[in-house]
């Protein structure tokens, strides 16, 4: 990634950006986010297959955004997240420069977010086979079996909200779960509180989730909560033809088609 380091340095030296967000080596064999502010910081930049955290979660963080114009090392999921965020007016060309990394690990610098969008649209969001199998298995269960499965799987959740914090789309500073007049979602982590929190999360990500698995990767308890968002993704495709993050296009869940099909409304 010499090219990346070189470009990051140039950008910082020229003052084009104030911070370059990328990956560096972390604890054990993990990688972590790097915020290069001085040109020399950029020497620590790396990129390899371990770099899976969705860095887009940082571009809405006030402390990072507050530094000034950002550049970000962006893999495909990160780019998708950026476009979704741009469509929700959270980032724009004036505060973000994207140093894309293609699925072939090539660096491309994008002139603007419109170019990023065009690049993102070359690829469709596909559910990985290992997840499709799990989802199919769940589909084959009876509703009662699924209910037991989820109550059991969600039972360890202690509501640390790492899933929310790691998700680039969960940038709201006051989440529904923190809305307490009325208290929509029970705050304590018990079966009901956990169920409602995870349902709410899935619904709020419907039509917005870009399937990066950041939530699952962040969960300290290994709860397969990304199955919920994946299911929403499949439903979006099945019922409404799916979606791609897009700066200008209408959002899947805030729009409708008069001929949306259903088979259950009497």
């Amino acid at each position, binding site marked *: 990634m010499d090219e990346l380091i070189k470009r990051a340095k140039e950008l910082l030296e020229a003052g084009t950006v104030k911070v370059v967000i990328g990956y560096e080596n972390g604890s054990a064999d993990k990688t972590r986010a790097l915020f290069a502010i001085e040109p020399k910081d950029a020497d620590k930049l790396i990129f390899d297959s371990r770099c899976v955290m969705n860095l887009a979660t940082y571009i809405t963080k006030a402390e990072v955004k507050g530094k000034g114009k950002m550049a970000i090392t962006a893999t495909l999921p990160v780019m998708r997240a950026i476009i979704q965020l741009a469509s929700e007016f959270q980032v724009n060309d004036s505060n973000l420069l994207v140093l894309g990394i293609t699925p072939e690990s090539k660096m491309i610098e994008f002139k603007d977010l419109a170019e990023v969008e065009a690049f993102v649209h070359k690829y469709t969001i596909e559910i990985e086979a290992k997840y499709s199998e799990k989802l199919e298995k769940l589909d084959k269960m009876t*509703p009662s079996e699924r209910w037991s499965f989820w109550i059991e799987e969600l039972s360890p959740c202690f509501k640390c909200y790492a899933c929310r914090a790691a998700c680039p789309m969960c940038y709201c500073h006051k989440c529904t779960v923190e809305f307490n007049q009325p208290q929509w979602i029970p705050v304590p982590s018990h079966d009901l*509180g956990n169920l409602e929190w995870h349902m709410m999360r899935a619904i709020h990500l419907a039509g917005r989730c870009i399937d990066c698995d950041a939530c699952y990767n962040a969960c300290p308890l290994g709860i397969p909560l990304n199955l919920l968002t994946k*299911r929403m993704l499949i439903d979006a495709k099945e019922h409404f033809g799916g979606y791609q993050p897009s700066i200008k296009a209408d959002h899947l869940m805030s729009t409708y088609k008069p001929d949306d099909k259903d088979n259950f409304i009497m």
Partner: protein
Amino acid sequence: MAEFEPKIVAFVCNWCTYAGADLTGTSRIKYASNVRIVRFPCTGRIDYMLLVKAFDEGADGIIVSGCHPNDCHYTSGNFHARRRWIMFRSLCDFIGIDIRRIKFSWVSAAEGAKWADIVNSTVAAIRELGPYEEYQKVAKKPVKEVING
């Protein structure tokens, strides 16, 4: 033992289904008294979380009803609602919530008889299914005394 009387909550819009239910009354069509109507301006206003809350608090069944497509007093609230219902219902199913207990319908201000049918058929269906014990088991013991068990 007395026969099980399902508790059913109906979330309806003011302009079509509420008015339709008024017409059921004006037409003196009788139906089961298990349903309690909560009036909203529009199906677009109906928060899916309220449906979940109804189950939390012990509802055995839910009816959600509004204007037919193209009839919405607010032009498109019902279209938005339909899109959300499609996703919400699917999520419920995926989680294992018994979606047979949530009935969605379009009942216009002119369909007094249809409203009575919807209520009666829902009551009959829920009576058949019995109390929603599976959900209540989770909802009514929210606080565990011990860890992870």
